[in-house]
């Protein structure tokens, strides 16, 4: 969507009918460029190009101000600067993009757990079961946009529709800083004037083949007899495009459930021999793994650790739990037990925790596990205030002050 400069922007009226339009596509506007602006607010309102200022590099991203001059991503930097000589070029900062991307998806998950990230700056949300606190799909989209703006300073455009593909088209049309609801009843009318290239699965060759048969809009595609399409494209693609052209897209929003394991590991700058320090690191890794399991709606039946020593010898140990868990505390207990069972070990270079044998988490009617409740509260605090907001006391840096006797956890 980087080519869009916002000139054919379309947003919906307050009263657009969102019944059954339960799929949201949220897309951060000019993501890389906007992140750079967070760190350099003085550049707001000016054309900004992200990329290296060298003759052989290409444009990574551009603000809407720069796009109006015809600057697009992937364009050679030299061309971009010819089109917009007064643009400010800033170097890309990958780690910042990853940080803000993670924040963005955390915020999406405050709306519904059913979030499917697509790339670094966009994702689908299925709000059909989001509940009354969130409200209608339109209200959910508005709330998401508000939270993203409040908590990150970034801007998300959101498309709301009955299917993923239409929602994605809608968010594209809503940019920048827009919200577009495509009512289920108006889906076909919305699609008809769009070029066939807007359909998922229509790339250069398919597009050419269609245009060769005088099919250039989605409406024309929908009107083409299926037999003609099959002759041009083959059975499977013809069938799929014909459905898409009529707004039919049965693909569900899928989360990370397909993952087979979730792990975290860390390499020390200097080898660590102190068992207390290793336990502390396991605690942090276990908490991370637990949070990721909860986010994915999974629980793990098996916990494994990996320990690499200074001489690069590596051991792995795993154990199966009595009950599957997604709680960092329980993962840590298992990980420490595995480490203890390994006996005397040489100084450690790398240590990791992995949750395996994942299955969908079954929600219980009541929580007996106080740890789980506590960790869920931490998840929520972190969604709101960022990663450093809450952490276990034993992971806090030493204050240097006097300490009371340590109590068992």
């Amino acid at each position, binding site marked *: 969507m980087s080519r869009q400069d916002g000139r054919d922007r379309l947003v919906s009226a307050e009263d657009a009918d969102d019944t059954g339009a339960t799929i949201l596509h949220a897309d951060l506007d000019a993501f890389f460029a906007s992140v750079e602006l967070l760190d350099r607010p003085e550049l707001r309102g000016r054309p900004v190009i992200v990329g290296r200022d060298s003759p052989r590099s290409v444009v990574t991203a551009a603000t809407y101000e720069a796009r109006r001059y015809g600057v697009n991503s992937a364009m050679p930097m030299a061309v971009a600067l010819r089109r917009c000589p007064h643009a400010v070029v800033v170097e890309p900062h990958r780690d910042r993009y990853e940080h803000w991307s993670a924040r963005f998806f955390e915020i999406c998950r405050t709306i519904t*757990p059913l979030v499917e990230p697509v790339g670094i700056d966009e994702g689908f949300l299925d709000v059909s079961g*989001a509940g009354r606190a969130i409200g209608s799909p339109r209200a959910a989209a508005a709330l998401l946009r508000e939270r993203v703006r409040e908590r990150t300073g970034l801007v998300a455009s959101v498309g709301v529709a009955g299917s993923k593909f239409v929602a994605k088209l809608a968010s594209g049309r809503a940019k920048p800083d827009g919200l577009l609801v495509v009512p289920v009843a108006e889906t076909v009318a919305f699609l008809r004037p769009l070029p066939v290239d807007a359909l998922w699965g229509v790339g250069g060759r398919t597009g050419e083949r269609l245009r060769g048969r005088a099919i250039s809009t989605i409406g024309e595609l929908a009107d083409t007899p299926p037999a003609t399409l099959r002759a041009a494209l083959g059975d499977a693609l013809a069938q799929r495009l014909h459905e898409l052209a009529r707004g039919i897209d049965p693909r569900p929003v899928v989360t990370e459930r397909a993952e087979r394991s979730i792990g975290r590991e860390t390499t020390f700058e200097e080898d660590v021999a102190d068992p207390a320090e290793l336990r502390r690191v396991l605690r942090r890794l276990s908490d991370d793994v637990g949070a990721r399991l909860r986010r994915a709606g999974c629980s793990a039946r098996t916990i494994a650790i990996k320990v690499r020593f200074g001489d690069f010898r590596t051991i792995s140990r795993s154990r199966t739990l009595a009950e599957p868990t997604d709680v960092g505390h329980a993962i840590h207990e298992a990980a420490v037990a595995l480490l203890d069972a390994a006996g005397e070990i040489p100084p450690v270079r790398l240590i990791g925790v992995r949750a395996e044998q994942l299955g969908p988490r*079954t929600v219980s009617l009541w929580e007996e596990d106080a740890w789980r409740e506590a960790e869920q509260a931490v998840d929520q605090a972190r969604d709101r205030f960022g990663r450093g907001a809450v952490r276990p006391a034993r992971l806090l840096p030493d204050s240097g002050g006097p300490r009371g006797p340590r109590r068992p956890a």
Partner: protein
Amino acid sequence: MSSNHLFIDPDSPTPTDPPGTGVRGLWQDESPQQKGTHVRFEVNRDVFSEAVSFAVKLLPQRTTLPILGGVLIEAGDDSVTLSAFDYESSARTTIGAAVGEPGRALVSGRLLADIASRLPAAPVEFSVDGGRVSIRCGAGRFTLLPMPVEEYPALPELAAAGGLVPGELLADAIGQVVVAASRDDVTPVITGVQLEVGENSLSLVATDRYRVAIRDIPWDSADSGIVEATALVPARVLAEIGKTFAHAKTVRIAIAEGGDRELIAFSAEDKAVTSLLIKGNYPPVKRLFPQSVEDYAVLSTSDLVDAVRRVSLVLEREAALRFSFSPDGLTLEAAGGEQAQASESIDAVLTGEETVVSLKPQFLIDALGGVHSEFVRLGFTRTDNPNKPGPVLITAQTSGDTGPSSFRYLLQPNLLLR
């Protein structure tokens, strides 16, 4: 089974002569008479077979104490009592028999049950003599080694007083709730069914954390004076109790509290079952039930069962079905991963807001098996927590408002994940 002990009961009368005339064969064929008890009775084949099968039903499949795999046979004046006991639960039944010589014997329960179930239709002669148990029936004849009866533990005494419940309703209620009890020994309290005696009613409650099933049946405290009590009974034992007493007109339930062995006893006619109670505090699950439910759907129970069974064919193990309720009806969807998907729509009358829930099919089937009614009501409770969908309340849909349903099943939906 280590049954190669010789059977000697010091308390029994000393045998004198070989068994009386009229009894042929067996003793004469055996090695010279050993010092031991003589037990001898004749009994109807069907009565015997039924009694043995009842007694062994509660025996543990595997036990570390072989002697607990035995069935105790006690011949009295004109009746025979068969008992089994594994320290947790006991089963006892008394049948009419023509007793030639009273006495006690202990034999392998499984073996006796196998034999009894295959005997031909003829009177059964049971006898013990000279360290051998002999069973003759028609032309069939079995000889087994007895187990050491003197090592067998004393069975718990039955309390005389108890409250009364109709057998059929008790069996019904047990069948409705036991499915919801946990099978995971990690949390022993929820592997039991909680019985709660209130004024004129007995509640049976079971849960495995993901659902709660409750059934209320009438309770007649009779002479027992039990008007308020709770007892946590192992679900496995209670399931057998339900089957055992399904045809009894009334079942007497006695709860022996106090002391370190709390016990519950169920008895009717010639049968009695006791069980130790599970110790611990049962979670207060009754308060999880909503006071009122404003959004609900009414469906044909059998249509829903059929649709759930069909659509879940493509599901992976442990996966849930997605149920979308709208004014047009209910759509069930199963995503079986890459390989297969399925969906089906059925009629449903929705009152209130559209709702989507993700439920484990077996949990729903268990509920639908319990409602015992043509139509079922699924109530949707509200929640503000996106990480915890509101539970679904499943009850029978009856015509008119007849007060709270006697069977209620609360089911926690999964997160809405595909």
